[in-house]
């Protein structure tokens, strides 16, 4: 299967594997666990096994506070693209908790929502929707590149004198 992970402007191989609640924990590798299972195993997992966490829409990011400094990756699930809770989850992780690892949007991730997700702090996207994949591969930009709110994405430049007006970073991330 072709790579699904879109990051830094292209599709790349994914070192991480999603692990459901029923699959046994491997001895080694890198797995993404649902929140409850992550919290159960984070203290006891062997050093050879890297853990990341999947937050579902109703999960409280505050639950990760004690573990953030050791987390390389947090995935946020959009079970339906129209459920916007994940945007707030991302902003809380970035702003309230200062998380600076990979923040990955998974699930129903669509082309028109990606620019909004980026501004809320997402840096990586798992893409399953074929037209979205084609558009990303073709470099099709759908963003309104002028912003009227401060956001989490690094490198946005002030635009004029207004307190909140921003333009994208000089080169898109």
């Amino acid at each position: 299967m072709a790579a699904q992970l879109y990051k830094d402007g292209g599709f790349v191989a994914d070192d991480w594997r999603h692990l459901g609640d029923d699959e046994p924990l491997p001895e080694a590798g890198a797995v993404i666990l649902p929140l409850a299972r992550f919290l159960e195993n984070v203290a006891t997992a062997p050093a050879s096994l890297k853990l990341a966490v999947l937050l579902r829409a109703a999960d409280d990011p505050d639950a990760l506070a004690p573990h953030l400094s050791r987390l390389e990756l947090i995935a946020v699930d959009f079970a339906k693209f129209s459920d916007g809770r994940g945007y707030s989850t991302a902003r809380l992780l970035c702003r309230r908790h200062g998380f600076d690892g990979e923040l990955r949007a998974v699930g129903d991730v669509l082309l028109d929502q990606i620019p909004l997700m980026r501004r809320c702090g997402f840096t990586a996207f798992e893409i399953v929707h074929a037209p979205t994949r084609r558009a990303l591969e073709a470099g099709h930009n759908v963003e309104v590149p002028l912003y009227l709110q401060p956001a989490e994405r690094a490198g946005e430049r002030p635009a004029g004198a207004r307190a909140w007006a921003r333009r994208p970073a000089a080169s898109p991330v």
Partner: protein
Amino acid sequence: MYRYDEFDTDFVSARVEQFTDQVRRRLAGDLDEEQFKPLRLMNGVYLQLHAYMLRVAIPYGTLNGAQMRKLAYVARTYDRGYGHFTTRQNIQFNWPRLKDIPAILEELATVEMHAIQTSGNCIRNVTADHFSGAAADEILDPRPYAEILRQWSSLHPEFSFLPRKFKIAVTGAPHDRAAVQVHDIGLQAKRDADGNVGFTVFVGGGLGRTPMIARKVRDFLPEEDLLAYCEAILRVYNRYGRRDNKYKARIKILVHETGVDTLKADIEREFEEIRHGVLRLPQDEIDRITDYFAPPPFDAGADDGSLDRATAADPALAAFVERNLHAHKAPGYASVTISLKPIGKAPGDATADQMDAVAALAERFGHDEIRVSHEQNLVLPHVRKADVPAIFEGLKAAGLAEANAGLVTDIIACPGMDFCALATARSIPVAQRISERFGTPERQRDIGDLKIKISGCINACGHHHVGHIGILGVEKKGEEYYQITLGGSGDENSSIGEIIGRGFSYDDVVDAVETLVDTYIGLRETPQEDFLAAYRRVGDAPFKEALYGTA
């Protein structure tokens, strides 16, 4: 009024391009209808009963002559020669073709207009008192804050997929003409003893299936905290608002189910974290935006007494002045309400020619300013009283001189089953029949202030819950039935109307309204005691008895 700078111009053009591309991808099949729907809604495009509908934003109901002429042009070129002004101070075109919508948006962009966030589960067009900057009783003009909120909420990355729509209204006068207590966030601007600006903040009001009056969460929020506090409210709502049932998804349900104290504590906790951050409003930015709304240069010698002489000679003009003029803060000036409720016509509709006529009057006599009121009328906010006779003549020629502002025929009605896919009953024809029943000038004036509001389904777009007389059309066994509520109000003493009893058929509902009005006339203590005051004094018993007989 606010004028676009280069940033705003580029922003709107980029949004038009973005939407054009979205339409193209929808037609190419890259987006299915479910995926496309929120995108088109966020740009004001609905799929209605017979056609697409385009709702164009008129931020806080303020526009100029060139913008009104552009709306007339769109009505003439892309629609059937008219538009419909809405209860949220916007305008809807009921018959555009989807393929024309990108072209319409390009036309609108040339006069600094757009359709951004006039629909969808996002922060909607911010509304304000239609007499802002003009009313004699105003403490301060709320529009600079409405504009700041408009900018901040435009294409907000975090709040574009909320549980449900989110409506904000702002007023700067003690008499609330913006119905702030029936909005998701209602803001009442005021000054403290030292002259500092702040807001009383209401949260969780709304109409629809479950009408609720908003709860006060702040008595005096300092102006510099406005955006941070709104962001805190929105974040709490986005995270905890219900998403399992669209009819329970508005913030009013969250307030109701969580309890206002708990929810307020959540909001305050969130606010504390961000209040000193980048959203804190700098004074120079407030001043910069406020400068756009500077009042026009008023002529100190405007009050020449000529209007009094003209009304003495012309009873029709006198009636117009009595009903359709509102007290202005500058001596010799007034705000003129242009009624879009001619007797027997659809409330809120204006033809392209009428829009052009209003634009011309605004340019000639009104400092080039027009307002849309949430009661679906137009307003010239700043006119010299001496010019009122000429304006009245101009309005007569355009068929817009009905002297019925605030009277029984000044009815709010949703589009209803004639246009809307959700409606279960007609509302416009009911409004037209009531208007005809009470249409003579003498009878209307005798009845006095009376707000009738009509919705064609329980979503309550006609605001029937806050009508002094509210009418809700429902469908029962294939027939239209009309439920009547009494005692609703959407001002600073807001209340939700109460159902008086069993409903009436389409044929009988106008008779029932007449019975209610006659009952009121019979029991009022003086002609100055209006319908709502009388109802609040005597309760529903006499009205019930008149409608249904003694039980």
